[in-house]
């Protein structure tokens, strides 16, 4: 409770700062600055990759990013890979005694392509820990072999609730799962739209199905009577659009990824459906806005990720290194990498040692406090709503 209030106070301060800086920037241009919700500032005690600069480790020590780099929904993976790389670079710069190598393995983003690259990482004895895998389906596919290898695995973005129910001792989730996000999204939609009916549309991924179930349950069968299904890589949605037109809902919730969400929302708008479009973290990417052209405007996106604009040191370093602002889950990936790196700095020089370090970890990161329950879920899991405003994704409000 105390923590909550502190966070709220911090958020207020950040908001004030944002409003002030907004005004300052506005002076000349006269561009209408739409209201932005408060984004939390960097906590004072947040662990950073640099550590205390006294880290010692054997040459060649590595951590790995395993996840999509060029495959399906690659933009989500690149945001995570970049942030991981940034953390490793900052760590190495600050710690001359401990130069950690980052191994990047492209999982392709799907369950069937992820197994080979993951096995290659397992077979590399220098790799002590993994940031990834980003998606739920692939995480499920490679989970057993990672668990057997005792290779600690912090996912910064896979949110399917079932992943922590497999008894894996090496799997840690760096954010809230869909059993948190789904009900939070449902609760928010209920207060926001006061709906008689909401269409819940899902894709055929583990992620989409799990999230849609959570949302449907929380909304109740009456409200979520309109259920639609689409397929991965589908691009023509006339049947789904027809279904939505007939149900005439107060809102549409899409459980899936941006690749399908962009054409879907465009075809909905073309057909004259004006109901608000609500998507989850898998849709929260610039690619959604770009690919839906004007049609994404006004869409709401829920995400168990924390707004990053307040973490100025991080966002500036990221911007400088990659030429773009950090994307969804960049900060979570940065935090995950920081935890692994701090363990290595503190002498965890083997897979079991690093695994044990993460298991008992308790510390503040940029995004939240990291302390895991025995099943690998975090104790503290904030969810936020974002909004597409023109061609930008802006923070709308936290769901409390």
């Amino acid at each position: 409770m105390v923590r909550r209030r502190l966070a709220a106070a911090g958020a207020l301060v950040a908001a004030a700062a944002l409003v002030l800086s907004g005004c300052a920037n506005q002076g000349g241009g006269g561009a209408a600055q739409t209201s932005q919700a408060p984004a939390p500032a960097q906590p004072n005690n947040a662990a950073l990759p640099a550590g205390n600069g006294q880290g010692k480790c054997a040459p060649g020590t590595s951590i790995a990013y395993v996840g999509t780099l060029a495959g399906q929904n690659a933009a989500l993976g690149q945001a995570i890979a970049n942030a991981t790389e940034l953390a490793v670079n900052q760590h190495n710069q600050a710690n001359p005694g401990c130069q950690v190598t980052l191994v990047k393995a492209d999982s392709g983003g799907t369950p069937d392509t992820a197994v080979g690259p993951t096995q290659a990482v397992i077979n590399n004895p220098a790799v002590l820990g993994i940031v990834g895998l980003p998606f739920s389906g692939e995480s499920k596919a490679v989970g057993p072999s990672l668990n057997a290898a005792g290779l600690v695995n912090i996912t910064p973005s896979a949110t399917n609730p079932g992943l922590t129910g497999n008894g894996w001792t090496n799997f840690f989730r760096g954010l809230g799962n869909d059993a948190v996000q789904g009900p939070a999204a449902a609760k928010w939609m209920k207060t926001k739209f006061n709906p008689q009916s909401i269409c819940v549309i899902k894709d055929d991924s583990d992620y989409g199905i799990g999230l849609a179930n959570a949302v449907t349950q929380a909304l109740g069968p009456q409200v979520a009577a309109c259920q639609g299904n689409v397929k991965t890589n589908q691009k023509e949605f006339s049947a789904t659009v027809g279904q939505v037109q007939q149900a005439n809902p107060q809102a549409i919730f899409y459980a899936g990824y941006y690749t399908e969400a962009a054409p879907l929302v465009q075809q909905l708008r073309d057909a004259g459906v004006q109901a608000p479009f609500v998507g989850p973290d898998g849709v929260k990417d610039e690619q959604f806005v770009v690919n839906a052209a004007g049609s994404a405007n006004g869409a709401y996106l829920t995400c168990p990720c924390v707004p990053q604009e307040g973490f100025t040191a991080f966002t500036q370093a990221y911007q400088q290194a990659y030429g773009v602002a950090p994307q969804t889950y960049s900060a979570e990936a940065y935090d995950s990498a920081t935890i692994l790196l701090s363990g290595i700095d503190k002498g965890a020089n083997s897979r079991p040692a690093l695994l044990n370090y993460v298991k008992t970890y308790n510390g503040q990161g940029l995004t939240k406090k990291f302390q895991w329950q025995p099943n690998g879920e975090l104790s503290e899991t904030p969810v936020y709503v974002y909004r597409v405003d023109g061609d930008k994704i802006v923070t709308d409000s936290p769901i409390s």
Partner: protein
Amino acid sequence: MFLDRFWANTINGLSYGSIYALVALGYTLVYGVLQLINFAHSEIFVIGVFGVYFTFLALGFVPGATPNIPIGGIIADLVLAGAVGMILAGVAAVLLERVAYRPLRRRNAPRLAFLITAIGASFVIQQIFRIFRGSNPEGTIRLLQPDPVFRIFGAPVTNLQIIIILASFAMFFAADGFVNRTRLGRGVRAVAQDPATATLMGVNRERVIMITFLLGGLLAGAAALFYLMTIPQGAVFNGGFLLGIKAFAAAVLGGIGNLRGALLGGLILGIVENYGQSLFGGDWRDVVAFVLLVGVLMFRPTGILGESLGKARV
């Protein structure tokens, strides 16, 4: 639900089925002449899609909301982009034949070798696009906003659908006329019917094969324009995969090797899969399409209209 949406589904199916049909023509033409299933045809289609997309870029359009330009300008731009897409796809199809299939034919390779080469060529072209353009779809550029023009039993018919259906039929009749009424077309039919005799009668077999690939590529390029107009997010490296399989299924459904069969198969497939998803839900779309294919093949193994490019009377 099904009855309410019947006419909307029919119109959507006709318009999307026209795209299937245009791509299916490419499969059918090559099969008719070479008995080769050109699995790389879906990538020829993707080359057309990127050709159209890059023409949009070159014309100064940028990804974002649909711009407001006069109708004459839109038509000119679309025709130009379509022409570029057709030419690129046509040239690519001919090159593919030169590089991948002709050397095999010279060495009298078994039919299986052609098939594997076709699959290999398909992956190569796909991955080249992935390496150069990444796996995210290209930013959306749309010139023409779909607007209902009139209604059939309450179902809106958009300007986009009218253009696609009319233009596809025009393309089809042009191709059909070319194969059935011109001297070159007669050569194509002769080679399809009996390559050895046709060669003895003075038909240049290599030239006929080239023309066949060119024609298939041109039609795929036209399909690419209509596809990108319908699905502006379609310019992506693997965008041809599912559509290619559907178009191939359409060609088999109508009777592979038969031009009119490809048209009929494409339209039926487009309409039936729309009925299917309306009846059973969105994830049944492909199931319905392929159950239909299997069902038809059980009773008519040669497809609805039979294999007949080679027959003197089509």
